[in-house]
């Protein structure tokens, strides 16, 4: 039979089972911090101070290579001009845009997001080739997220902020590009497409 005591005088904590002591309860409250070790195991957080986690959730590393990037600090008008030039330079007869791959570093791609579409609306890329996506929203905030079958790459764009990501598609296919930030009544119809083809020899 348990010893009992009036709650008004619960007695010294040394008489208690350790699961009802303040120190144990307090320490247990911090138990969810154990999730950190899972993060570290996936390289998503530094295990020790000074050891950086991986730059991306699936094995990337920080920074980007390549050349010919849009200049930091450029205005929306300047970016639109670059984006328009890119579309004009690589336009295909079917209206899509297919940047050429010279084999030297990541291939630059310029993607503008605006009410309610993208330029280019249809991109043709090669599987296995790294592309340096340079993206900007030209009026209000937009998403330029890419549906990849079993999940998506969510990308948020703010007007006037140049966003750079180096993307390498691993498999051929047609990928939906869609806006993931509400941008007005036709928001549902704001979409584009990336068609990824086998790499040419």
């Amino acid at each position, binding site marked *: 039979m348990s010893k009992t005591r009036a709650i008004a005088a619960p007695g010294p904590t040394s008489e208690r*089972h350790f699961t009802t002591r303040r120190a144990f309860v307090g320490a247990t*409250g911090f138990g969810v911090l154990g999730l950190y070790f899972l993060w570290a195991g996936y390289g998503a957080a530094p295990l020790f101070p000074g050891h950086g986690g991986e730059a991306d959730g699936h094995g990337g590393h920080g920074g980007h290579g390549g050349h010919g990037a849009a200049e930091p600090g450029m205005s929306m008008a300047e970016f639109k001009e670059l984006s328009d030039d890119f579309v004009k330079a690589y336009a295909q007869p079917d209206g899509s845009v297919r940047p050429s791959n010279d084999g030297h570093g990541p291939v630059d791609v310029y993607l503008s997001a605006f009410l309610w579409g993208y330029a280019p609306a249809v991109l043709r890329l090669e599987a296995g080739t790294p592309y340096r996506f340079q993206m900007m929203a030209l009026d209000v905030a937009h998403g330029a997220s890419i549906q990849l079958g079993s999940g998506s790459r969510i990308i948020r764009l703010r007007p006037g902020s140049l966003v750079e990501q180096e993307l390498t598609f691993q498999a051929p296919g047609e990928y939906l590009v869609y806006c993931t930030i509400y941008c007005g009544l036709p928001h549902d119809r704001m979409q584009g497409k990336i068609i990824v083809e086998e790499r040419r020899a």
Partner: protein
Amino acid sequence: MSQNGLVSGVAALPEADKRLLKLFFAAALGALGLGVLFGASTALARAGFVDLGPLAGYRAMSGHGVTIFFYWLYFAQAGLLLALAAAYGAPRAGFALRPLAAIGIGLMAAGFAASLYALYGGMPLLYDAPPELARERSAAVAAFYAGYLALSAGLFCVAAAAVATTLRPLGRGESWSVASFASVAWAGLLMVTAIAAFTAFGPSLMWALGLGTMPTNYSTAWHVLFHNMHYLPLMATVLLWYVLIETLTGVKSILGARFSKIVFASYLILVPPTSLYHMFLEPDLAEPVRVVGSLLSLFISVPTVLVFLVIVVSLEAHARAQGARGLFGWIRMLPWRNPAMSAIGFAAANLALGGALSFVLIQEKLAPLLSDTFFVPGYFHFLTVGTVTLTFLAALVYALPALTGRALGQPGLLRWLPPLATLGLVLFGTAGVTAGYLGVPRRVLDVSYAGDAPAAWGTLMSIVGVGGLLMTVALGLYVLVLALNLLPLKRGAGAAYPEVRWGGEVALDARAWTGPLAIAVLLALMVVFSVGAFELMKALPLEAIGGAAHH
């Protein structure tokens, strides 16, 4: 019915204070009823069961967020805060600074009216209403920000009145009870949040009135405000668990009042600095800031988990003194036929699910997989509906009859509403979270994208719609039963709700493993959901590097 702090305190209030509290709760239930209708319309439209068109559809979506997140949760909090402050202080003396509390509800009601006008007077802006989206100044846009500012000013007044009310016992040389102390912490965070609202919406209102330029930092100010707004209702929820469990069982903390006070105070320390995780997808956020943001965010659950542990450990130790056997036998001894106990039980289970899912989002590397997807409403409905709303309604189940002197109708029905709401929530949340993992965007009415989206997206949204309907039925019935109690209909005191009285003795050598085991289960759920996200991200046919922005 019990004659302890909450019930006897509310019943002892002066009539003028009771009338004021009835106004708060009537406004809260009105906002909840309206918000549920907006939510049902949104869910049905997303499911493709009805075609509202973009204007009505996005108005419903905006209305759902505005009425639930801003007005239901804050009218209810304002009323419950005042009720606790007085009930656990000097109830017969009533509210200190009653005129200030009355001004508070007046301002909040004016804010509600302005927000409803804004919803139907202009383009739907959703509840965050970024000025850049409004683009042009108009009376409706000005009303949007003015409504939020009036709400914030009203909350500030109510919080000040609540703090003043808790001070009364101190003047007589008494010390604060845990409920009074926690009410002051809650009121303090409300005041900080109200000030944050002014920094977010003040410049926007000036712009909308033509008295200033469009603010350039609205997004950051919004996220800081919104983060506090997440945790205020959760802090209120665990405080209500604390006082309701005492009401239902007579059990007080076996860890002492000082420990509980420290835990409630820790909300003030741990909540405000952890707002970064809402901004992980923002292009401007530097990588080191993201890493620090993830680390800090791990601490966000600590106060809530600690209050849960204090309650569960205390309950278990007392139940063992009453003869509870086995690891979980004590749980069966709780008064589950009591509608408030039923609501708190389901609220705790929903908190575990919602909390575990939310921890996937605090890892910045997973933001490019899940932020801005339906994962977000999928998990947060476990918290807003399944945890916070069920708890607030449980508190009203006790507070309203104490205010009106009339018993609630349909106590048997009330007991079954939490499981019905949770059933809907499980459908909504499971389909919604799965949809989020697959990339379904939030805040989109039609996810078909002219046939280019995966077929599963539409199917999952249909399940979300069915779950939303079940939640609508459960919450609609709650509103009906509680609102009827506010009407001056003839009804007696009614039969007492089933309760237990375990407060007298505690088993000193009792083991209390349920709490630690619950935290282990919570951690296991976090690991499962996080591993799923990491593995899914690794499996995507895309390698991505970077994400930095330049101006």
